[in-house]
């Protein structure tokens, strides 16, 4: 059963007088529970594709369907609500809120228009803190954590709202290779235990091998799956 479908999605934008075509007719279908990598070199369009999947950018043409709903015509407010309830984000630079500690960073998405009680929030936050192995770092601020620990916080923050899909934009790019592998292994174990759909972009072949499926993107087009040509 597919949770995300892109049908002939195109995205172009102006860069000075030049029109750059970031995506040129991409059609993709992603099933629930997939652990999927979007691969490609820098400038290939994989980040733009991820943005479409995350409802943080809209296509110039084509259709993006998430959980059965076409998100193309949604307003900014509706897209925000959609992201809040359906999608979790993991960023390359971690993007933790610097003034909040580990617990508060993970709790943050639950506090934004959530109707959960304090106890319910606490239970959820503690569960994911334990899951990412940061029990002893609850009160630490992001600047007191290593890169790997920050990314673990970001993973817990992405998962705490129990989203339909988690999008990770080059989640290991700012980590050393060992830490990067451990982060991907963590994501994969959560994917296997919770059946949460993970979609991450990468150009690291080592990380790519961890994915169950790889979509190769080049020059704004999907050029193959798992290395096969389309």
């Amino acid at each position, binding site marked *: 059963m597919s949770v995300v479908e892109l049908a002939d999605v195109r995205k172009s934008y102006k860069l000075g007088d030049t029109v750059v075509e970031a995506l040129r007719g991409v059609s993709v279908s992603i099933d629930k529970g997939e652990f999927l990598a979007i691969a490609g070199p820098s400038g290939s369009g994989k980040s733009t594709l991820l943005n479409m999947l995350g409802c943080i950018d809209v296509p110039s043409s084509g259709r993006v369907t998430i959980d059965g709903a076409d998100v193309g015509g949604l307003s*900014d407010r509706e897209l925000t609500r959609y*992201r809040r309830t359906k999608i979790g984000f993991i960023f390359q630079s971690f*993007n933790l809120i610097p003034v909040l500690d580990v617990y508060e960073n993970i709790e*943050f998405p639950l506090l934004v228009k959530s109707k959960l009680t304090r106890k319910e929030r606490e239970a959820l936050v503690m569960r994911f803190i334990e899951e990412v192995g940061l029990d002893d770092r609850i009160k630490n601020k992001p600047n007191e954590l290593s890169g790997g620990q920050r990314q673990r916080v970001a993973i817990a923050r992405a998962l705490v709202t129990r989203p339909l899909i988690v999008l990770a934009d080059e989640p290991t790019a700012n980590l050393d290779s060992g830490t990067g592998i451990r982060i991907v292994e963590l994501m994969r174990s959560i994917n296997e235990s919770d059946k949460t759909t993970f979609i991450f972009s990468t150009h690291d072949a080592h990380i790519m091998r961890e994915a169950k499926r790889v979509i190769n993107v080049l020059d704004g087009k999907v050029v193959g799956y798992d290395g096969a040509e389309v």
Partner: protein
Amino acid sequence: MLVLRLALRTIMRRKGRMVLIGSLVAFGTFLSVFGTAFSSSAGEASRASIIDNFTGDLIVYSARSKELPSPFAFNTPLPNIRNADEVGRFLSASPEVLTWASFAQNYGLVQVERDGRKVDLPFIFYAVEPGPYRKVFPNVDVKDGSFFGIREDGALSPPGTGVTGDGSTGDRARGVMISAFQNGQYLRNYGVQLRVGERVTLLGITEGGANALPSRVTGIFEPKHYKSVFNYINFVDAATYSELYNYTGVTALPEALNAGLAAAQGGEDAIFGLADAGIGELDLGSLRSEALSGFTMIAVKLKDHATVDRFIAAIEATDGLEVKAARWDAASGFYASISKALQAFIWLATGLVFLVVALIFANTLIINVVERTAEIGTMRAIGSDKSFVRNMFLAETLILNLAAALVGMVAAGVVMAALSGGVPLPETISQFLIGGGRLPLRANAWHFVQTLVAVAVVSVLATLYPVRVATSITPLKAMSER
């Protein structure tokens, strides 16, 4: 709560920058509270001082006048008040009136003999009913002699006729009161110093020519307030003034003469013909003289200053009085304007400080927004609405600025408490502003409240553009931030 927590922690995280901004806001607040308290105190003290020393709440003057009354316009005297008696009766009968005094302003010469030669000393003066004037304006500090026989406690002369505040003539002693400063000027410029009791000749210019009147110096005085003006002004009692300037007449002419004049209808031959009819052979002994006032202004003090406009409307609308009236501020020449100009200056200075603070604050906020692009984009990506971002910045602004405003208000309160004995001012400024002395500082809650509101409003206004920039940050920025 989340918004407040984020705002507080962001402020603490950016302490250096926030302390700078907070200091500016605190300074602006201090200036606003102290400035408005100073300004309103100066305005109130100036009003009270002007009313107490030279205008009363209002000045009544002739309806024929084309000029506003000004106590210092000696070169353009106002027309006499024709119906002074009736005006006096109106004022005496008005329950709103506390007290009043008639006066005129003019100039002339005081002639004295020294070593066998006559010396003419120029002098400008107020012609006053001594009793009522001193009761209305206790601005005279008698250094030698007396104020026309009127004691400092305002004890008045026996009742008589004429336009007075309380039915007394106040002419117990006739002559001139000379300002001590003026007397010093005489000594310096003419080598002559007047002495109390000294006989002098007063010279006045009238339409018919120069009049001379023997008189004497009744006293030497110093003004208590507004020395910059009253040092140059002397006093002449009303009776002397009337005599010097021919403000005298007869109470009634024979009926036959009046009837003849009416029948002549202004015709020259007919008027001269009256003499042939024997009307000119009058028994002068049967005529009784009367002193016409010659007063050009009547200063009126009201029981309640708030009724001034209503009272002015009433007196101007009363048939037969033929007078107009000017409020104290209109009648004070430029003195009320000085206070208003000072108030305007303080408001302008405060406004400019707030503008500068607002611009610096807005600029700093924009820098903050730019520095926090990834953070804002992240919040938007993980589900925060634009309103959340807007509220976060507003909360930061209001927390910082209101806290700084409190510091500024406390500082202003401490300084004002330390100056509870009055603000020392340079003598020249003090003389022009409040007639001299320290400015009593009167702060009230309103000065603090209006400043707090101003800080809040300016803070919100200064936040508008930075917030607009912040809310325009898309989640895409979080994804593209490396």
